[in-house]
């Protein structure tokens, strides 16, 4: 029986190794995986770093927004769990954009007006719609509101198992950082170390010094990439902080309840034997 068991375990390990080996062969040797970054919003106690989100928004506004839209309402920028801009700042920011009114005027013409906090960020001036972007660029730049959730890289076995226990959910943010730092061939603006197949449609969008931070953070590509990735993580999941706060209480409650249940169960079953 013991020999049966050992051979069984051995065959199970062999099967898993075979499956793992298959995955390893499928890996492209010159396609490195994005590096894992440290994020303030990772883990059980994670919250967004307000200053970082504000810097990330600045990067979006000054660089990304030239081509990418961001379909979130201005008002969300005042979210205290998010970038936490003041109401006045958000109002002024919204008013600096021209948005197309939802209904036509009394002559039946569509018209533009200054934005209000309830409005969604308008599309980039150069590309009012995807067709215009395709005509100019060959491919429409994706809307950035869900980008941090819509991008991933293969974690592979056994990492995907460990990810359950250390609550790793920042695959998309790490991917964005890697892409922005992946333009390593100075002679080819569309070659990216981390993009699958290396041929990326977006030419290098940002380099050292492109944005001037006002809070003294060094104006480097590494900082830009982390700040924009953090900002986009918030934009994709604005309820993250509330979720983790409630989650911690729920888990503690369930652990206490389970413990009490366990002892009650033990006491009741003591009579059964």
């Amino acid at each position, binding site marked *: *029986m013991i020999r*049966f*068991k050992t051979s*069984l375990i051995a*065959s*199970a390990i062999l*099967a*898993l190794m*075979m*499956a793992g*080996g*298959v*995955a390893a*062969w*499928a890996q492209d040797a010159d396609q490195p995986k994005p590096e894992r970054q440290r994020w303030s919003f990772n*883990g*059980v106690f994670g919250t967004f770093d307000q200053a970082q989100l504000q810097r990330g928004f600045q990067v979006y506004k000054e660089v990304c927004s030239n081509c990418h839209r961001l379909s979130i309402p201005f008002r*969300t920028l005042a979210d205290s769990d998010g970038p936490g801009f003041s109401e006045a700042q958000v109002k002024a920011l919204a008013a600096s954009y021209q948005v197309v009114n939802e209904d036509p005027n009394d002559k039946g013409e569509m018209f533009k007006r200054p934005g209000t906090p309830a409005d969604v960020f308008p599309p980039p001036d150069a590309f009012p719609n995807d067709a215009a972007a395709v005509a100019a660029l060959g491919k429409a730049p*994706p809307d950035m*509101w*869900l980008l941090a*959730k*819509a*991008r*991933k890289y293969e974690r592979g*076995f056994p990492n995907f198992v460990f*990810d*359950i226990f250390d*609550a*790793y*959910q920042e*695959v*998309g943010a790490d991917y964005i950082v890697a892409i922005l730092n992946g333009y390593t061939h100075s002679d080819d603006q569309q070659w990216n170390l981390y993009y*699958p197949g290396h041929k990326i449609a977006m030419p290098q969008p940002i380099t050292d010094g492109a944005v001037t931070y006002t809070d003294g953070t060094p104006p480097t590509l590494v900082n830009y990439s982390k700040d924009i990735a953090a900002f986009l993580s918030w934009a*994709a999941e*604005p*309820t993250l902080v*509330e*979720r*983790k706060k*409630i*989650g*911690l209480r*729920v*888990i503690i409650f*369930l*652990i206490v*309840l*389970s413990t009490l*249940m*366990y002892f*009650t*169960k033990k006491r*009741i*079953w003591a009579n*059964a*034997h």
Partner: protein
Amino acid sequence: MSGPSTFVPKSALGKWFESRLPIMGLIHSSFIAYPVPRNLNYLWTFGAILSFMLIAQIITGVILAMHYVPSASLAFLSVEHIMRDVNFGWLMRYLHTNGASMFFLAVYIHMFRGIYFGSYKAPREVLWILGVIIYILMTATAFMGYVLPWGAMSFAGATVITSLFSAIPIVGVSVSHWLWGGYAVGDPTLNRFFSLHFLLPFMIVGVVVLHVWALHVCGQNNPDGVEVQNVERDTVPFTPYATIKDLFATCVFFILYAWFVFFIPNYLLDADNSNIANPLVTPAHIVPEWYLLPFYAILRAIPNKLAGVLALFAALALLAFLPWLDTSPVKSAKYRPAFKVFFWVFVVCCIGLGYLGSQEVTDSATLVARILSIGYFGFLLVALPVLGLIEKTKPIPASIADAVLAKTGAAS
């Protein structure tokens, strides 16, 4: 086992009501006095866990349906509206999507437990078949639910699964068009999937009622696989013994559920489903949800489309025939040393197929998937019938009480 009810109402109103509709007596005999084998282990708590999960899915699902819009142009946006603007909408949606995974995790443990301890054998064949029907309804419900957010993977999944029917000779293409309500997956498909996704859970509830009814007629199987002979010696009443044990296990299971909902809610969701469905852009790598991966691996392992589709449905349907495929009179694997080994090989085959289903197709992956598919069908079609004829089983205890006494005696 659940003979005429011994319930006697105390109040005059209770007596009046009971003589007109004996529902209190039914509840009393089903959930209070119902005799439960005293040797059950924690694997027997998954029935209760599954009941809780079914209720949780229905409650969160009904609330989500209040805010969701089943239209190709608005479905994706309405899900994001739920996530961002609806009060606690994110909670309802994450409870629902992760709840589906937890539901399947629990049902797989429940099913493997049934196989390991021979719970499908006489007199529980009908009970088992009802369970298989519930499982098939669950896979259909989950598949249609996955289409509703109308992300890129929803669209690709809907296309792949509905196209399976086009493999049927002669009428296949017409069947696919009929399922789609058009010439491709589109608005009519989404609408009918929403309608059916709302309907099927209530059909599941109906079959669950039959499942519990059948269970309460023949009584629960148990780790020793011997039937109850003496209710006094072999069983304990459902309340409080099973009630408290089930509640404790459900609480522990909910810790896992909460961990997924609050800390890794996107772990099981494909990133591609955060991109809106676009018929012109297919995801580089189409994968179903994790709970359907083994079947997807079987489908891809077979080079011929029709044969692959037949194998996929056979892999599901064969489960209903387990009571007759397994020829051994001994129920529990505890007393079946050879069966035990084959059982674990079967589990490894299922997990291995699941892993391969998530991987891209390569020659070596296909080869391994073929070997594991042979393992899957080999267990059901060869090992189970043959083992019953040649296996030398261990002596089974005379009664449940004897098994319990032997165990506690050895421990002390």
